[in-house]
């Protein structure tokens, strides 16, 4: 019986793909957990869209400054080499294609790379967009962390997103609790390519859980994550 990855394990796996020297923006939720798990020998600059390049650890004690926060409104510190700037400059950095990788949460990803991660349709509630559309359209690479299926077992990896799009044809890679998958726009309509799959899960089971064409990379490997205490 296969054990799906935990939130932290999904974030851990996504963090392993952040290369040394990368400029990275992490979305709220699971993506921000990735900062805890990047290999220690890599120097990574985390960008926060409210105006930081080089976000450091969460502030403790005397470090706390209510006027120094990240995009999740956490009181943070700055790492060595950091800089701060205003929102217009910060989004110019995002929109101008200078962020190497953004890791975002998702509701749905389509085989052509379409991403849906906001929803205007919560009953009686207004919409909430924030910076996701800018990140999805502007970053050099968009990676998504999300569970493979909805709570009631529906597919999140789909042929066509039923939720409103955040940006079309932007996602390169998806980390789920079952697999690591790349978007392959080469096939008509797009498909997913499984790169890694968790131990104990059969290819048939993964295919059944995926609502879009799925192929397996010739070198498809086992996705083995370390045991991790659940993070913040």
């Amino acid at each position, binding site marked *: 019986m296969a054990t799906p990855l935990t939130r932290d394990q999904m974030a851990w796996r996504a963090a392993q793909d952040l290369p040394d020297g990368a400029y990275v923006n992490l979305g709220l939720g699971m993506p921000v957990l990735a900062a805890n798990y990047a290999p220690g020998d890599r120097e990574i600059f985390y960008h*926060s*869209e*409210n*105006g*930081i390049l080089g976000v450091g650890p969460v502030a403790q004690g005397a470090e706390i*400054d*209510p*006027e*120094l*926060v*990240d*995009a*999740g*409104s956490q009181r943070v510190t700055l790492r060595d080499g950091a800089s*701060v*700037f*205003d*929102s*217009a400059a*910060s*989004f*110019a950095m*995002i*929109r101008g294609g200078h962020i190497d990788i953004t890791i975002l949460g998702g509701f749905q990803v389509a085989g052509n790379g379409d991403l849906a991660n906001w929803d*205007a349709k*919560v009953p*009686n*509630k*207004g*919409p*909430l*967009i*924030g*910076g*996701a*559309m*800018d990140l999805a*359209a*502007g970053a050099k690479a968009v990676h998504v962390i999300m569970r493979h299926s909805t709570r009631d077992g529906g597919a999140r990896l789909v042929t066509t997103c039923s939720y*409103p*799009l*955040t*940006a*079309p*044809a932007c996602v390169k890679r998806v980390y789920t609790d079952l697999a690591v998958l790349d978007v392959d726009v080469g096939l008509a309509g797009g498909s997913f390519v499984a790169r890694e799959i968790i131990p104990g899960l059969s290819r048939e089971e993964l295919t059944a859980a995926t609502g879009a064409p799925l192929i397996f990379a010739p070198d498809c490997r086992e996705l083995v994550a370390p045991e991790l205490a659940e993070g913040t």
Partner: protein
Amino acid sequence: MIDKRVDDLQAALAGIGPGASIMISGFGNAGIPGNLLHGLSGMGLSGLTMILNAIRRLEESNPVFFAEGQIAHVITTAFRGPGQAPAAFERQWQDGKLTFEIVPQGTFAERIRAGGAGVPAFYTPTAAGTPLAEGREQRDFNDQTCVLETALTADVALLRAEKADRYGNLFFRGTQSNFGAAMATAARLTIVEVEEISDQTLPPAQVHLPGIYVQRVLQAARKD
């Protein structure tokens, strides 16, 4: 002689009337002009247009804006209240008493920057191919579909900074500048509350926003 210092909240907010469009700085708890917002909400103005990143924080800190229905229109990136039940502003929206425009955060910042920089309109790929682009003018550049966005300007901008001098030069602490730096350029009247008004002029290296963009500065301790 240039002297943009004002003595009290009343002088800082003088002249703002019903129907004004007001840009408000702040991201999280950084750069929030808490004193100015408190003063403004007590003026009992109606028909205000509020231009700010996230409206829910305004309801949390200044519920009187919504209790009295002072706000007619909101331009924002996050129009959603906390919790399961709709917030007061969501109920007013459902009742047709309040309208809003939702804007991606980067487009929001760029539209304000454009308003201050004399750029009446620009194209951006952000939001192309999404529901926000429906019915909008779109055009391809470099094989990328883009949406035409127009500049945002306002009657008033309310900011918080750490330091100011009599010229209106501003020094921001931490991530305090966020939307405020651009808002100051896009409003006809920019009012800033600061922790400290220095008798010494800010040295050029400390000027994050030149005083040309600021009309009034008020000393006031930080108020969330």
